[in-house]
Structures are given as C-alpha cells and as structure tokens.
C-alpha cells in the first residue's frame, strides 16, 4: 500500500519538477503560455473538485473565477490592497459566492442544477456589465503596473517580470494540485466520491450529503477564485469576458479532455486545449469550432479523457 501511496506523490513531484525546469528551456512565447496554462489549470482543478470528484455538473464556474478576478483587481486598484492581500481577497470572493450559490443551487440536482448554475453565472456576468462604472464592463481595465509588486524583505518582485510571473503561477498550481491530491485521498475525498457514485447510499451511511456537496462547492469556488485572482494580478487585465458562459464551458472542457476526476487531468486538458485553440485561431476566426468538435469527440469516443484513458490502458496510477 505504501508503495502505491508514494507513487502518487512521486508522479506529482515529477510533474512539478518538469514545470520548474521548463522555464529555462522554453522560448518566450511558450514561457508566457505555460504560465497562463498553469493558472487556468488551477481553475480547472477547482472545477474538477465539483464535477470530477463530487459529480456536481456546474455550468457556471466562470462566476467564481470572475469573482476572484474582480475581487483581486478591484481590491488592488480601488482599495489599495497589497498583492498577497488581493490574492487572498480573490479567494475569499470565490468562497463567499460559492457558499451563497451552493446554498440555493444545491436544493436542485441533475440538469436543474446545471441550469441554475448557468443562470447564476449569467446574472454575475450581467452584473459586471450593469455596474460598468466600477467594472468598466466589456472593455475591462488594466491593473496599474506600479501596483503589481511584492516586497519581500528589502527586495521587490515585479509581477510583470516573466520569471516572477512564471514562478508565482507555478507556486499557485503546485498548491492547488497537491491540495487536490491530498483531498481526493482523504476521508473527506472518499465521501465526495461516494456522493458522486450513490448519493442516497452515502446519506444512509450517516453522512450529511448536502453538507458535503456544499463543502465541495465551497472548496471548488475558493480555488477557482484564487486562480482568477492570480490571473488578474499576473496578466494585469480585468474584464467581463472571464465571467461569460464560455469560461464555464472551458472549465468543463479542460477537465473532460484531461480526464474527469483525475488529479493530473486538469493540467493536461488545459494545456492541450490552449495549444489547440491557439493553433486553430491562426487558421480561422471561427476557431471556437474546435471546442465544439473536441467536446463531441470526447463524449462519443473518449469519455474518460486523456489521463483516464491512459490509466485504463497502462494500469492504475491513481490506485
């Protein structure tokens, strides 16, 4: 048993080591891409905890990501929060929103839950447009360069510096990735999976399944908010596109492509899809068609995604 356990962590450390080394090897374009992918993969990890682990098919996770983006962006710009405080404020934004939405949306299940989360996310999106005096709506705003600094001891780190940006993104990803592994293999994680597999039975085993679903939503929303905050601060842009349905669909797509309920899936799915969309947008302005095609192909041919299929073919990495 202990051998399997250490395999799990060894794989995780190997993945993180590759990402750490990659920064010295990557050309600038891919360097930036990787930093972005790591932040978005953290968002996907958050989504995976709701849908992948707990079976809560949400189509509104963009609202938590956006809550983090706006909380951090407005917190830095309007309230003058320091960078670490803005980051924490973003996570808090995701947490509070997820708690509120969860309390209402979890009264429903199945497709009704999907529709309700979609609509709440739309309400958040419209709210960002409605209060455009504060949010600058569609256009969004750029977080001032002067604010994006962290002081550690006497040294000052600029988030606009590519190396700093890459490593902050890596640290964030490592935190979310390792936390998701620890969660999945904890007693709580086992209950979340049980809720996904057979909610009624889980309840009859003495678990407050509503409470666990709410917990999953809150953890998921907090991680999504944290990722959103990091995105805003690292890439300096805050705008309502991140609250649109498309970002909720992206989270679903990344997780499905990588492998639902697998810990490594979100990174793989986000990475593959970013490059695929990148490539397609060079070819056509209708590049989003690849999103549609990938979703349909996944459903028809690879329901377990890349990592899920790999586990099936080459033994159980997850155990």
């Amino acid at each position, binding site marked *: 048993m202990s051998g399997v356990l250490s395999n799990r962590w060894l794989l995780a450390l190997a993945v993180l080591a590759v990402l750490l080394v990659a920064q010295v090897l990557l050309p600038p374009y891919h360097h930036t891409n990787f930093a972005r992918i790591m932040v978005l993969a953290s968002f996907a990890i958050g989504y995976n905890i709701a849908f992948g682990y707990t079976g809560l098919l949400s189509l509104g996770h963009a609202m938590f990501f956006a809550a983090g983006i706006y909380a951090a962006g407005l917190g830095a710009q309007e309230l003058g929060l320091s960078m670490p405080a803005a980051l924490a404020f973003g996570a808090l934004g995701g947490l509070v929103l997820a708690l509120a939405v969860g309390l209402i949306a979890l009264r429903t299940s199945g497709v009704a839950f999907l529709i309700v989360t979609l609509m709440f996310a739309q309400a958040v999106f419209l709210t960002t447009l409605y209060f455009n005096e504060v949010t600058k709506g569609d256009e969004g705003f750029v977080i001032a360069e002067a604010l994006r600094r962290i002081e550690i001891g006497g040294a000052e780190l600029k988030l606009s510096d590519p190396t700093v940006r890459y490593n902050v993104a890596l640290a964030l990803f490592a935190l979310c990735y390792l936390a998701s592994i620890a969660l999945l293999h904890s007693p709580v994680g086992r209950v979340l999976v049980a809720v996904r597999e057979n909610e009624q039975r889980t309840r009859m*085993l003495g678990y407050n399944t509503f409470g666990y679903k709410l917990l999953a939503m809150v953890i998921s929303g907090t991680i999504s908010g944290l990722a959103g905050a990091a995105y805003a601060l690292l890439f300096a842009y805050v705008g309502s596109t991140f609250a649109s349905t498309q970002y909720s669909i992206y989270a679903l797509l990344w997780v499905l492509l990588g492998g639902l309920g697998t810990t490594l899936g979100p990174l793989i799915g986000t990475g593959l899809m970013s490059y695929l969309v990148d490539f397609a947008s060079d070819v056509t302005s209708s590049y989003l068609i690849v999103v549609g095609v990938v979703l349909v192909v996944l459903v028809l041919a690879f329901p377990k995604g890349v990592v899920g299929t790999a586990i099936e073919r080459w033994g159980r990495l997850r155990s």
Partner: protein
Amino acid sequence: MSLLRTEALSKRFGGLEAVRNVDLELPAGEIRAVIGPNGAGKTTLVSVISGRLEPTAGRIFFKDRDITGLSAWQRARAGIVYTFQITSVFPKLSCHDNLALAIQRRRMTGLAGRLREDPAALRAEVEAALARVGLAEDIDRTAAELPYGHQRLLEVALGLALSPELLIMDEPTQGLSNAEIARFCDLVRGIASEVTVLLIEHNMPVVMDLAERITVVERGAVLAEGTPAEIRADAAVQRAYLGT
C-alpha cells in the same frame, strides 16, 4: 426498555395509505421479523423508520428520544442502519472503499481526522468487516465485479460496519443461494447479542428460524404480533397471508 417505538405512524401517498396507525415496540436485543403480503407496506414502514420517507402522521422514538424530525443521515448516526432491498452499494468503487466509507465515519472527528487516515489500520478493519460476510478475498475488486449474491452480502457488511444499534434489513436473502442463506442466518444470530434486528423477509423458513417475534402487516396496518408459534397458530394470519 424498548429500543424503538412508533406511535400511530402513518404514511400516505396521494390517496393510498401505505402505512396506517402503526404502533410498534421493539425491545433491545430482539430479532423481529415483519412479514406480510406484497404491497402490505412493509418497505414503506421501515423507510419511514429509517428516515428515507417522512411520515404523514405519528411519532418515532429511539431509546425514548423523539426522532421524528431527524433526517436519514442523523438517524444513521444515532444507530439506526438500513440495508436496501434493491442492492445499493457503490458499484464503481472497490470493496475496500465501500467498507472504508462505513468504517471511517466514526473516525472523522476534527480537521485531522477528516483529512488524514492510517491506510494500514483502515485496511485491517475493512478486511475484518469483509471477512464477517466471507468477502475478505474480494477486497480489491470493484463492487460491480461481484456476483449478485455477493453484492447483497456487501450490502449487509456495509450495514454491520456502521456498528448499528438497530439494523433494519429489507429482504436481505433475496437472490441468495441456499448456502449463502445459511451463512447469512448464522451471521444474524451471531450479531443478535449486540444488535437489535428488524427484518423484512419473504422467505418463511428464514423468518421462523431467526425471528424471536413476528409482526404481521396487512394493508398498511398491524394485523397480528407474537412469537413464531403464535403467529403460525393465528387464524387471522393464516387467512390473510399464510393460507394464500
């Protein structure tokens, strides 16, 4: 002292009164069988007791505490455990994880207890729990891989692993082979010293063999109650049930 007591318990589905004014009293340590024709309301009765359904009227007391307002999971925590008539396990999870879910609950106190576990100790407990129903060797197989009869036993093992005070079993022997039934009866007799058992069962030899007292339910109401010998001799029961 009675472990479980119901007062005028009723459950109505639209125009159908599935359970009518049932007063049931179950002393601690007893094996009680509930029998009755199909559609008599047995499963509805135990569903109301276990909290899967809300009663339309009446009250339920467990160890003299009114539990009518408690939800199903709170009742499971209080010690009322229900095993399903239609096998309800976690088909995609291993037998280990199925049982671990039942076993870990008591350990999940505080943040550390919720986030960390001792895999070796847990596995040992899981193995012991599976061994009680003869499934120790299947520990790493997924539940869906087990033959039907073994899934029923896994269901029973899940119930036992919760250390119930009252174990409600809904047709546990349905679909089991004769050898498995014999093993099951031994198991129930073995736990009867610690656990009170409420058993819904169609298999009359099993009922007569295990039950200390029998409650006969017909059309939602209690028709008769007594020892197996009394029930066998009861003319009304024979007319309504055994005779047919």
